[in-house]
């Protein structure tokens, strides 16, 4: 019920909920326009899905091939079993370089590892350089979306925040002006960067390099000024080679923001003269996830966020209501693997409408996995008592056709004559924000019996 409670808070402000809903729907529509311009879109999705499934089913070989070629290219490769090990590795690289400032670009993996709070406790200053990430870092919040981290914030709020943090003019919340202020502020950090960090969108086994996609150019600004580049990737980011990269790059930005491609698609193959590239390959539960028959395909995800933008529940409950780094439909099938007990309600934060699966560029059957996780949650005894009782009751009712028909008849009459407060009260949480449709006079069965002989 944690998600439901948080969503209720989010919904208290009606106009704001509508604004959030529409902002994301706008991104979804931009995606549709792009998709319609590619005649072989469905073929591309098939390809992307099959390439990922092939790679995941041979993941150990591909990672070893990638490592061999990356080492040959002069990239230093590290392996981290979990978040702690990852964070310590980053700290160690910083300490060995004698640097206490890290300029970083967006990485959902470092969010997952809770790296920033760890480094800050050790006296490292972390500067997020993606505008959205910098905004929420200033606001001391978590990202509410994996591609649009500050989509939940109004420009007036960003303006207020920048007044305090960057000394912008009070009351000026023009996005152009605010972005200009952030540009000036972050440029100082880029020029002074000694160690820069990025995520990884794709790693190529055959050439031993990796690809980072941004629109702002912030990843490259940091990296090329710094003498050390640290990049972190989950084990599932590797793909065979460049011909497969083409398939994913055609899908990624179109699905994410409705652009044909991001402004910058940077390929890091070898470090620049006198510079270092450190690449950290992180497991953090992924290899175990790979062994889950019904759920391993979730690892195909390329983090485009299309399933968030289309989800009727996400759009109306906001990213923070999910309580995890990756919210929305994809988050709800990744989080139960992280902690089934803590996130047992997330597979229920869905109407199972299937829109997420329809827009997914790598064809993850998200809504089916949500359904399977619900069963897993129940089997592990993590279903709330209220839900369990309700489901048991409905199960018995639906298994007895006579009883079902009788109760239907009774309910159709009763609902007509029962005073409102008896139907809509605290015992009926479903009815808190919803009304039942007017009960029909007869059931379909009754109607059919009456009408089947008429011609």
């Amino acid at each position, binding site marked *: 019920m944690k998600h439901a409670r948080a969503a209720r808070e989010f919904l208290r402000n009606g106009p704001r909920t509508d604004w959030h809903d529409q902002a994301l729907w706008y991104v979804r529509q931009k995606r549709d326009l792009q998709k319609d311009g590619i005649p072989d879109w469905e073929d591309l999705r098939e390809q992307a899905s099959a390439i990922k499934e092939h790679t995941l089913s041979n993941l150990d070989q591909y990672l070893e091939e990638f490592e061999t070629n990356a080492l040959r290219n002069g990239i230093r490769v590290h392996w981290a079993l979990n978040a702690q090990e990852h964070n310590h590795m980053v700290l160690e690289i910083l300490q060995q370089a004698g640097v206490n400032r890290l300029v970083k670009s967006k990485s959902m993996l470092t969010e997952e590892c809770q790296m920033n709070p760890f480094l800050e406790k050790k006296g490292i200053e972390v500067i997020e350089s993606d505008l959205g990430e910098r905004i929420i870092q200033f606001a001391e919040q978590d990202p509410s979306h994996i591609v*649009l981290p500050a989509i939940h914030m109004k420009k007036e709020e960003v303006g207020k925040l920048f007044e305090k943090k960057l000394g912008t003019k009070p009351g000026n919340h023009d996005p152009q002006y605010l972005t200009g202020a952030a540009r000036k502020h972050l440029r100082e950090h880029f020029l002074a960067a000694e160690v820069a960090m990025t995520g990884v969108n794709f790693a190529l086994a055959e050439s031993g390099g990796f690809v980072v996609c941004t*629109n*702002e150019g*912030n990843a490259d600004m940091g990296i090329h*000024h710094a003498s050390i580049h640290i990049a972190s990737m989950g084990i599932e980011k590797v793909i065979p080679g460049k011909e497969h990269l083409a398939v994913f790059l055609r899908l990624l930005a179109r699905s994410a923001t409705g652009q044909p491609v991001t402004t910058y698609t940077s390929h890091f193959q070898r470090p620049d003269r006198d510079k270092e590239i450190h690449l950290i390959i992180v*497991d953090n539960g992924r290899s175990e996830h790979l062994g889950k028959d019904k759920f391993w395909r979730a690892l195909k995800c390329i983090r485009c966020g299309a399933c968030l933008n289309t989800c009727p529940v996400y759009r109306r409950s906001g990213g923070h209501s999910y309580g995890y780094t990756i919210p929305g439909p994809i988050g709800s099938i990744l989080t139960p693997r992280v902690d089934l007990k803590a996130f047992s309600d997330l597979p229920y934060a869905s109407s199972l409408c299937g829109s997420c699966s329809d827009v997914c560029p790598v064809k993850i059957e998200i809504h089916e996995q949500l359904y399977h996780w619900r069963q897993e949650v129940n089997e592990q005894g993590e279903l709330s008592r209220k839900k369990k009782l309700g489901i048991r009751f409905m199960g018995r009712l639906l298994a007895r056709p006579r009883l079902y028909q009788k109760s239907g008849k009774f309910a159709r009459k009763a609902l007509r004559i029962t005073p409102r407060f008896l139907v809509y009260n605290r015992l009926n949480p479903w009815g808190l924000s919803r009304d039942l449709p007017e009960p029909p006079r007869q059931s379909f069965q009754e109607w059919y019996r009456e009408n089947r002989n008429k011609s």
Partner: protein
Amino acid sequence: MSRAQILNSISKNKPAPVKLPAPRKIFDKADEDLLQAFIDKAIDAGSETENFDSFEKVEAWVKQQRKNGKYVMDLSMPAGDPGMVDMVVIRGQLGVAENGAVWIDDEDMPTRKSPFVTNHLVLTLEKVKILPDMHEAYSKVDLDRTSFGVFIAGPSKTADIEQSLVIGAHGPIKNTILLY
């Protein structure tokens, strides 16, 4: 060792092998006007384009900029701070019609940071080097011979504040493609 532990765990848990799909067939797009498609997409991405008949005319354009007092950084004059110069000129190796992106390799850059830190990036591109899509682009790019390479589609941009598009997030505010 974490490396061994991770690889062991993967080999224990990985699903039954799935076949790699056959390479996507490349459709014949010879009849498409690639140049016009490229220009349209480049403009959509926020780039400006200029048309020339020959490379000499492109060189003349650059010379004229210098004559007009602009500080132009390129491979012939790589000295200076790319963040302070008026423009950085880099040779594009190929263009992609479906998205208006241009591929540049670091052997053509004054420095790796130069295309990002300058306020005005100028890319030169031979019209015959325009390819229909990313599949064909990657069939031409040789990553084994690349140290650092990047597809650039337009100036640096962001929409992180209320989805309002702002040009010039951190890098170039202007991106010009000189076609010849």
